[in-house]
């Protein structure tokens, strides 16, 4: 069980949205983690500077929150290591061919009412729900 946190989740969501709006206003870019990461893998894209800075800020954030508020960020991973590796590889291949993930399609794309992003988001939400159903209720796993 994890606690239902509608307020914290909503507030966090508005900050994700704020970041998406600011990145478009200043850099003219979609705040999609897939696109930002892909440009940093070799062959590295010429505009790697802002990408690396965005990632550095994102990685520093949980530490900053913990230092400022004094409360640790909730974290729990029930997933065994071999499955983390399998899941990571699958996610990497999927987001590359699908041209985006939750941030790029699910937030930025849907906010622009892009038909591609709406289709992508419905698809990955559906397969994620189906996968968790199979792992937990068919196979009895994590």
């Amino acid at each position, binding site marked *: 069980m*994890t*606690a239902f946190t*509608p307020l*914290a*989740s909503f*507030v*966090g*969501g*508005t900050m*994700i949205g704020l*970041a*998406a*709006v*600011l990145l478009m206003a*200043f*850099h*003219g870019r*979609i*705040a999609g*983690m897939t696109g930002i*990461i892909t440009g940093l*893998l070799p062959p590295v894209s010429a505009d790697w*500077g802002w990408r690396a*800075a*965005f990632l*550095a*800020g*994102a990685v*520093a*954030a*949980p530490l*900053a*929150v913990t230092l400022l508020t004094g409360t640790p*960020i909730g974290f729990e*991973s*029930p*997933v065994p290591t071999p499955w*983390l*590796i399998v899941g*990571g*590889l699958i*996610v*990497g291949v*999927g987001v590359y061919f*699908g041209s985006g*993930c*939750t941030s790029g399609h699910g937030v930025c794309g849907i*906010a622009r009412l892009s038909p*591609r992003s709406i289709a*992508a*988001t419905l*698809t990955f939400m559906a*397969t994620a*729900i*189906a996968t*968790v*159903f199979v792992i*937990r*209720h068919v196979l009895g796993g*994590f």
Partner: protein
Amino acid sequence: MRRILMAGLIGLVFGTGIAVSGMANPAKVLNFFDLFGTWDPSLAFVMGGALLVTAIGYRFVLKRPAPMFEARFHLPGSRRIDMPLIGGSAVFGIGWGIAGFCPGGAIPALGLGEASAFIFVGAMMAGIFAARALRTAMAARPQNA
């Protein structure tokens, strides 16, 4: 320089939103998908908050002739719903359901110093790299072969 600094600041806002919302917590993400078990609907509120702000903010921003630091907005041009989009997204969802991490959740989770985040991100980077190499190889092959 201001481009870099601002991007770092925006990344900080993004990562704070991810951390506060629970998106960096795989247990919470997996429970969101577990409709028929220990369902935790919190992440619907993340999506709601993010979409509300982005949809309204984009309306104002995209009315401007150009972004502050660039000559033009870099918006995806394709409108086609094709096989790579749907197939890739279906595959991504399977991986998300296995690991409980999506790319935007996993990167800020690195800052928590959790080993599982590092293992996942390493594998994800390898997956993106392999997929790009595969696509490049496929594109280089003669079409009539």
